[in-house]
């Protein structure tokens, strides 16, 4: 690609004023949505309007001040974008709880949002140079795999909730999903590992049908990751995380080695694995059936059982969940029913996996397009950071973190909209869940840290990033 030469990364500006304005706008949007819920439900502005408004405003102002002090050159868009998504998620959960959804808890989510923002600032303060992470490559890898494997090893009474063995529960009051943190650590590991090995992995082996195959002995890392993903799928019944990690690894492998053959090998391995899993495991096969023809009465089954309170056997209907989500999207139409005026309580898990469907019902196509646009902007700002970064580890880490964010949105949103088979995953920053919020806020802190480093004017100005790339080759 020759665009690099004609499209140099422009000299960055701090744009702190713009960031503060955007942040204020994000808070105003969220508080507007909050007021809207109250007005629709009780005909009045909710009682906590002032407290929450000042709370959220104060929290984001603090985050801004820390960012301005410790990462003054950071991308000005990232924090406001995340604030809008996180805030809208909060409003949806508040609305679902007020609407009588038993498991939705806005109080918890508000607390975890605050903890998440604090973790964001702490990461920025403590981690002054992200390249320190490169030295922790193998530690991150080891801890990540242990965290990932932990729920599978622990007894089901501690680790299993609704069929997915991905939790560690501390009594009844607290539980964490170690996989969310493992995700972050593994991306750090992939980045460090691939930067070290990319020259070897990029070596061409045999050539087959215009494609340079890698050498057989270099297949090791791919096969190991593939195996790990399959283990997650088998022992934790967690299709989503399995697909998320393997896909991210393949994408990072491609970014690091520039070898399309790795992508093809990855896709083949994945399709093979998924097909086998579909044959062997009922719950995987059921997902495929539900994806191909969700409206079919055979797959929809006896929904009366599914509507029982408490819910009946999840296998009573293969496509009950997905169909309820689709009904939600349909009910929303182009403009949505308006916040607190639809029936997202009809959608199972509308506060977690299906929060996108709940949002689609009440904010409509218009709201979802805006939301997807915000996600897309966030991801592209992250990838932009990768482009601007000056060392390969930063490039790969920024690329990996951005990609995993995009890939996660694609898997879960694609799943609930029936574009791809449904696999349970958190919708980043929206779904209820402390572990995911915390991990994702740290992810954002890493991106902000790297964008600060990338945009900070270097001692000797290098005008053309494209040339830098040539030197690195």
């Amino acid at each position, binding site marked *: 690609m020759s665009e690099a030469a004609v499209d140099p990364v422009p000299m960055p500006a701090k744009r702190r004023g713009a960031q503060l304005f955007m942040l204020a706008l994000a808070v105003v949007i969220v508080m507007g949505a909050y007021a809207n819920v109250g007005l629709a439900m009780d005909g009045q502005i909710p009682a906590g309007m002032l407290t929450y408004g000042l709370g959220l405003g104060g929290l984001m102002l603090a985050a801004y001040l820390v960012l301005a002090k410790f990462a003054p050159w950071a991308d000005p868009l990232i924090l406001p974008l995340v604030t809008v998504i996180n805030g809208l998620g909060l409003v949806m959960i508040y609305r679902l709880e007020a609407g009588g959804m038993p498991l939705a808890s806005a109080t918890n989510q508000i607390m975890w949002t605050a903890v998440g923002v604090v973790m964001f600032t702490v990461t920025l303060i403590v981690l002054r140079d992200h390249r320190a992470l490169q030295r922790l490559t193998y530690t991150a890898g080891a801890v990540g795999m242990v965290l990932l494997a932990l729920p599978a090893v622990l007894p089901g009474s501690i680790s299993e909730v609704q069929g997915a063995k991905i939790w560690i529960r501390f009594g009844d009051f607290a539980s964490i999903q170690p996989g969310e943190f493992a995700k972050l650590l593994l991306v750090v590991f992939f980045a460090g590992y691939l930067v070290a090995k990319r020259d070897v992995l990029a070596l061409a082996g045999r050539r087959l049908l215009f494609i340079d195959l890698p050498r057989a002995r270099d297949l090791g890392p791919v096969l190991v990751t593939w195996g790990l993903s399959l283990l997650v799928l088998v022992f934790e019944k967690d299709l989503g995380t399995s697909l998320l990690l393997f896909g991210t690894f393949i*994408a990072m492998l491609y970014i690091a080695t520039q070898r399309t053959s790795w992508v093809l090998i990855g896709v083949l391995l994945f399709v093979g694995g998924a097909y086998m899993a579909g044959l062997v495991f009922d719950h995987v096969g059921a997902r495929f059936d539900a994806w191909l023809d969700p409206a079919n009465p055979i797959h*929809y089954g006896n929904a009366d059982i599914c509507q029982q309170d408490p819910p009946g056997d999840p296998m009573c209907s293969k496509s009950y969940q997905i169909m309820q989500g689709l009904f939600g999207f349909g009910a929303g139409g182009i403009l949505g029913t308006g916040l607190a005026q639809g029936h997202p309580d*009809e959608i199972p898990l509308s506060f977690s996996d299906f929060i996108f469907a709940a949002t*689609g019902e009440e904010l409509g196509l218009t709201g979802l397009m805006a939301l997807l646009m915000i996600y897309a902007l966030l991801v592209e700002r992250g*990838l932009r950071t990768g482009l601007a970064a000056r060392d390969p580890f930063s490039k790969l880490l920024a690329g990996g973190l951005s990609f995993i964010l995009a890939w996660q949105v694609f898997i879960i949103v*694609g799943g609930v909209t029936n574009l791809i088979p449904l696999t349970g995953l958190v919708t980043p920053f929206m779904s209820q869940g402390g572990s995911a919020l915390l991990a994702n806020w740290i992810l954002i802190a890493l991106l902000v840290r790297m964008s600060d480093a990338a945009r900070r004017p270097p001692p000797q100005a290098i005008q053309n990033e494209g040339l830098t790339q040539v030197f690195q080759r």
Partner: protein
Amino acid sequence: MNRTLKRAAVACLAMFALLMVNVNILQAVRAEGLQDDARNRRNFFERYAIERGRITAGGKVLAQSVETDSKEFRFIRKYPDARLYAHVTGFFSPESADAIEATENQLLDGSSADLLLRRSIDLFTGEPTRGASVELTINPKAQKAAYDALRQSGKRGAVVAMDPKTGGILAMVSLPTYDPAELSGTNKGKVFTRYDELAKDKSQPLLNRTIAQTYPPGSTFKVVTMAAYLEDDPSRTPQTTVEAPQNLPLPGTNISLPNYGGSACGSGRVTLVFALEKSCNTPFGSMGMELGYDAMKEQTEKFGMGKPLSVPMPVAQSDFGKQEGKDALAMASIGQRSNRMTPLQMAMIAAGIANDGTVMKPYLVSKVTDAKGDTIEEAEQDEWTQAVSSETAAKLREMMVSVVNNGTANLAQVPGVQVGGKTGTAETSDNQPPHAWFISFAPAEDPKVALAVIVESGAARVGAEATGGHTAAPIAKAVMEAVLNK
């Protein structure tokens, strides 16, 4: 690495583009189909989210929506006199509705285009949409009188009364009845189970017998034959005499048509008014055969039969019968054979005679008002058909008054009021006792009410001429008294 990073950026954009396209397909293209899916419970909730308008009659509330504490079902339907008005109001079940609840649904739930202005105003003032209220022509006293009197007979049957000058329906009772509240609950399982029970019930409680069921009209149909005979030659009067043998041989068969119970009809040659008073079969059989099938059918149509009618519930088609032989025509002319009439059609015949020969279009909804009380629609009185000339109508009135005063229907007499009527006893093919009929109007000089009563298998086999008069006429009397405040 920038080259692959850019490619990764393009791939991410492509993923978001795919998601956006898919969401567009879902929410813009497929939305309607998903909304209409029967498994989507939102449709079910929406039915209960709006405060439906009331159904009222004569200052009484027949159906209204009451707010509940439930989030899913904000308003539920209440029917204060559920069984009494069941076939008028109908029910409002989780997936369907009946009678006025169904035909006026768009007004009641506020979705009608007629309410567009009201809705726009509500949108600006921030008030929730409320449905319009529907006022019926029903006279609660007459309805109650009809219901009580018919129930006292202990039989199945129907009573329908109308104002002959306007066509407004004053009473509409069908027994057995049901409780609309049982079918209007929000518990789908319970409602559907109950509905299935009622639908399978052999006594057909869900059936509105006044408009959805046809019966052989029996001798009440003789007024139509008489009308055709008088219209055929305006010089004929109630005193015109006709042959009235004990048995009328039916051409093309070896059977003959007897009078009721095989009795003689006067001296064998009687006046028209005597034939109607005593409800002799033989003269009316001859009249029908003399007039011919086409004239008879035409006269029935002039009384309103044969045109699709809704009040606003659709009314079943009455039918004079197919053109067969002379024998069939003779039988049809006394309301037997394949002659089938709805009770409403018979009431329209009485009403047409009462109203100088003009049949007014029957209707139930007199006025629709929006939630603020402003009138949106008011019923217009339409002429439905011109049945007979006003001279013929006057002759028929005179004869029908004589039937009540001197003939088979003395039990329908109301003190101080001239009542006109005609009894009927309709044989049914199965081995059941015949149906007892009565049609009437009052007061004869200035009619305020015309009605038809049928009591299924209500005529005891007593051998008397007055079987229809015995069972059905007292019910008619009660209704007429209620309307006339006697």
